[in-house]
């Protein structure tokens, strides 16, 4: 196990959430926008519409800067954030899927070469060649989604991988196809919303109406098809994930409602401004529609992330970065089973040697280290921030060491939290430390921690 990083008072989950939110819009636009650009460019050449070409040129610069470049930087940002929060999980993903990421990288290379060539050769090479380059970009962007979907799906539904550890067993997992179809359908919704923005800026009302209608058709089609596939997708994820999303957590239920509302609002937008009032559609409503879409996607991605609890790598590595599974195919044995017998602290190189054996003078320090190891990937230990443990403990009604101890005993009964890992003495040390966070003034009996009575 590695050293720990902690965003005091705010929460590690927040760091992830912030960067992921910044990533979502550019990365979806970078995949969705170019299909529309390609389509519109073809129309522009057919109808010899120079205004439209000027527009596309301007907008492909925006896609280039804000989507492709910030998309790849924030994508790397997610990787870095996950690295500092859960290095072992990233390590596990990489050691399984290194060739998957490397394959993805090949598509990034194609994307960067084509998007720059596309932008800098606008109206300088034959329309046919230019459109071909745009199409290569759109296709390789979609292919990078084909790859990433395999890995994202694996993280929720690993399928046979749990036994075999095989690359393709995890890649073509039970939720792979539904998720790929959902993502592809919504890619066109994003493209449609983007095209609506482009169209809304157009001066010539005839061109505008035409472009708006195209945008609306792509958007509506994507929404309907994507909606149907989403139902299929929910049917394919594990029952426990559905329980977490729809029953356990109020938070994810809210997210679900937000996603539904966003979808309905977009539908209305495309019908009214895309089909009925296309001539008078304004950029402001188009941008608002894009923002609504953004909120909807964020809600959907958040649900998918929550549904993975309490695992970082499903049925293999818990959120506390400990392995709880024997994977015979790869010669891995469960650490949790071992730590429950011989203790977490003796196995943690980065713990001070003085706490490896718990006694009456070091139990607080031991408890602090254990709590950080097992809880900070989701909680803060301060009273502020994302899912603060002292606050949640008060809400739960546990205050004394023995009450907290009882809570830790039952930790594994929660769908979304990993069980406590470690020996009984370690559990009491953690309980003592957490109790001291809830009420710093209470007296804690060292003999109870060490001997259990």
């Amino acid at each position, binding site marked *: 196990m*590695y*050293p720990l*990083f*902690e*965003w005091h008072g705010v929460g590690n989950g927040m760091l992830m959430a912030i960067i992921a939110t910044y990533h979502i819009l550019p990365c979806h636009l970078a995949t969705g926008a170019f299909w529309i650009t390609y389509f519109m460019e073809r129309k522009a050449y057919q109808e010899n519409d120079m205004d439209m070409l000027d527009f596309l040129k301007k907008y492909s610069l925006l896609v280039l*800067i804000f989507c*492709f470049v910030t998309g*790849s*930087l*924030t994508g*790397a940002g997610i990787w*870095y*954030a996950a*690295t*500092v929060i859960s*290095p*072992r999980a990233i*390590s*596990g993903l*990489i*050691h399984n*899927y*290194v*060739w*998957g*990421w*490397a*394959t993805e*990288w*090949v598509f*990034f*290379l*194609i994307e*960067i*070469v*084509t998007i*720059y060539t*596309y932008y*800098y*050769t606008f109206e*300088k*090479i*034959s329309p*046919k*060649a230019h459109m*071909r*380059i745009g199409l290569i970009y759109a296709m390789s962007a979609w292919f990078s989604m084909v790859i990433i979907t395999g890995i994202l799906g694996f993280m929720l539904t690993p399928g046979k991988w749990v036994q075999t*550890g*095989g690359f393709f067993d995890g890649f073509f997992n039970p939720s792979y196809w539904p998720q790929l179809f959902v993502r592809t359908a919504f890619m066109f919704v994003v493209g449609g919303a983007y095209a609506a923005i482009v169209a809304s800026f157009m001066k010539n009302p005839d061109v505008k109406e035409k472009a708006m209608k195209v945008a609306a058709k792509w958007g509506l089609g994507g929404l309907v098809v994507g909606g149907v596939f989403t139902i299929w997708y929910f049917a394919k994820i594990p029952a426990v994930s559905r329980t977490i999303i729809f029953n356990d957590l109020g938070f994810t239920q809210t997210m679900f409602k937000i996603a539904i509302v966003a979808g309905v609002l977009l539908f209305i937008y495309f019908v009214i401004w895309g089909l009925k009032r296309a001539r008078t559609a304004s950029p402001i409503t188009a941008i608002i529609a894009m923002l609504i879409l953004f909120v909807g996607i964020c809600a959907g991605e958040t649900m998918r992330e929550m549904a993975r609890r309490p695992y970082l790598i499903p049925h293999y590595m818990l959120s506390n970065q400990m*392995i709880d599974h024997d*994977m015979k195919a*790869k*010669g891995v044995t469960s650490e949790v089973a071992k730590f429950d017998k011989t203790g977490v602290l003796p196995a943690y190189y*980065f*713990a*001070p040697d*003085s706490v490896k054996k718990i006694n009456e003078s*070091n139990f607080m*320090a031991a408890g602090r*280290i254990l709590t950080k190891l097992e809880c900070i990937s989701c909680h803060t230990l301060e009273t502020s921030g994302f899912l603060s443990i002292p606050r949640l403990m008060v809400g739960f009604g546990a205050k004394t060491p023995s009450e907290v101890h009882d809570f830790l005993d039952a930790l594994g009964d929660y769908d979304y939290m990993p069980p406590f890992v470690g020996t009984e003495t370690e559990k009491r040390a953690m309980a003592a430390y957490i109790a001291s966070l809830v009420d710093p003034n209470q007296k804690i009996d060292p003999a109870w921690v060490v001997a259990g009575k």
Partner: protein
Amino acid sequence: MELAHVLNGLRDPMGVPFYPWFFQVLMVLTFALHIIFVNLAIGGTFMAFYEHYKKGEYNKKLSGFLARSSTVNLSAAVVLGVAPLLFVQVIYDPFWYVSTVLSAWWAVGFLIFVTVAFLALYAFYLKRKGEAMKGFGFFGVASFVLLLLAAFVMNLISVQFLEPEKWKAWYLTGTMMNTSGTTIYDFRISRYLHYIVASFAITGVFMMLYGWFFSKREDMDKDYLHWVASSGAKLALWSTVVAMIVGVWWLLSVPSKLNFVSNPFLIIGVLLGVVFLIVLILAQKEPEKYAMWSALFAFVAVLGMSTAREVLRMVYLGKFNYSIYTYKLNLNLGSTALFLLTFIMGIIVMAYPLAVAWKLGRYGKTNEEGA
């Protein structure tokens, strides 16, 4: 616990899906490509605002070209950087992760620095034209400073990486773990400057290439192109000299008991640097003629030095009995083939847009098909 045991224990229990040497080769190769574009971005950004603040029509024109090309080079550096970042985590995971987590905010900051640097560079490129816009030079300067900062983060991560014997003492104060992620534990200025100064050598070669590449174009000013190529040749030559002096300074900081000075890989790396220097000396008179040669030898020298860098890493970590070649192997041929086939396909696909761009740039036009 013995450190070798600890380091091996930190490795991923699932092992690697293909032979470690293969990842190592890919890592060195992609690192060399990555660092060339990093050099171009850093050197190019500096020269862009430097020329921007100088008087003269040529300087302004060159500034514009460098600003534009640096945006492209910076994004290429980002995309190319993904590969070595991936491969280093496959074979050196214990070192990379500990070093990164210990200075977590700096690692996250790295991406913020690069992102803001990119946006500032774009602002500079788009707005710099005209007297009234002179103030936008500030954006160029800001971009350069942020890139320097980002490079510094990579320096500290790579240096902390090599010192596993110090990690625990850094992390712990009594029984308190320093989980803040804001601390910088170690860095090496000589090593850092060696990279930064080399940026100007590579950028100089890039300017020579520019002069050569557009030399056939009727619509470009020949005198201007020649001026760029000559300035580039001068810049490359003198930066290489300085980089070599800094290199010696850095070598002195490598512990002498590692015996790295007599390592054949280092000697080859240095010799390749010297060959590059000789080519640059020859190039001073007719920079256009030697542009491609300079580029070729620059690449070979960078590759040689990246290899020496990796060998030095193995020497350092050998002290702790760490060897990547003992990494547990769980061979997975299917996914290896997936990558290799996609890679070959990718090269073929990329050839088309690159050929179009090349022809268009060099001759100012393309045929009907665009290629």
